[in-house]
């Protein structure tokens, strides 16, 4: 059976269609116009922010790149000291709206091919994500009646092709009153970037790899 997936994020009040994840300095208003990039270099005291972008705007999700707490929370914006709460609200959401898929794997590849990792960011194991797969019951995303784990969460997991990933697992559309999902949520992190990283733009893509009939 084929599968239909929606890729969205929740900005705290409404769902947005994700078009890009951007890592750039956080010294700009949020929301800001899509495509805007900070001209202040991260590093040397300026942190690297996490932004989600839809077709019109970009939204600052994190002011810094810090590891996430090893727990999942669907409605908590409060950062604890030294860590960030991993919440669905601040995550990218892959939501199954029809069908089912097998052998799913969240990982990162370089460029447009989705199958090579010859990229400094990936080779240095700097691309990480915290991820969780579940379905939920209720009518409000931020206050579900219940959450059922499909795959246990993985926190601060390095993503690099077939070497490091979150998976493998199966997902499917849940039918039933007020059932929603399955949902794969994750928050990308660029962690421990060294000062000697080559100057420039490093394109890579985080993908959900899956199979269907």
């Amino acid at each position, binding site marked *: *059976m*084929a599968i239909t*997936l929606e*890729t969205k994020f929740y900005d705290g009040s409404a769902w947005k269609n*994700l*078009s*890009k*994840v951007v890592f750039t300095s956080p010294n700009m208003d949020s929301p800001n116009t899509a495509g805007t990039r900070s001209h202040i270099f991260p590093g040397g005291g300026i942190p690297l922010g996490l932004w989600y972008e839809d077709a019109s705007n970009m939204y600052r999700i994190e002011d810094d790149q810090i590891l996430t707490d090893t727990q999942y929370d669907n409605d908590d914006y409060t950062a604890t000291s030294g860590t960030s709460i991993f919440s669905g609200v601040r995550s*990218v959401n*892959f939501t199954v709206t029809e069908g089912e898929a*097998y*052998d799913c794997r969240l990982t990162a*590849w*370089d*460029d*447009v*091919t*989705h*199958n*090579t990792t*010859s*990229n*400094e960011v990936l080779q240095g194991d700097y691309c990480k994500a915290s991820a969780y797969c579940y379905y939920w019951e209720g009518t409000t995303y931020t206050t579900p009646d219940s959450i059922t784990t499909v795959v246990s969460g993985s926190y601060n997991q390095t993503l690099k092709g077939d070497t490091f990933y979150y998976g493998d697992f199966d997902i499917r559309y849940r039918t039933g009153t007020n059932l929603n999902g399955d949902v794969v949520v994750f928050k*990308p992190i660029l962690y421990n970037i060294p000062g000697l990283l*080559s*100057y*420039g*733009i*490093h*394109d*890579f*893509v*985080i*993908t*959900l*790899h*899956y*199979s*269907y*009939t």
Partner: protein
Amino acid sequence: MVQDLKTYGIYNTVTTVDPYDCRFLAGYPDGRMIRGKNFIDTGWDDIPQGLAALRYSLSTGHIITILKFRAYLPLIEVSLGIDGSKMFHSINVKCLADKEVLVYSIILKQTPDSKLKIGDVVISKEGLPTEFGKSWKYTDRGFSWR
């Protein structure tokens, strides 16, 4: 100091099939031929059991004939990027033999430096599955009473 702004990781190019113009062709003993819809919504789960032949037609003109086994389970392998990009990697046709499963992987994309090109077939082997879902389609030699 002015530096040239380099962009890393976008120089490679990829060529892929048109998933809307690829499909399976399922033949039956009475001469019927059922054409799949495409690779987005294949229609595989809706076809009847008892296949006599299975082929794949790619948008590139490749026709790949799968040898006859006891049953087939085709799995299309794709990746969905958070930027909305979608890549069709291969279709992996699991073929049930007497004591094992052979997997025919039909390549659906290529890059300038990739060894495998669109339409190439890689055959691998795996153990028998523990269960058979409804997506397994038996051939006319696949039933146990034959």
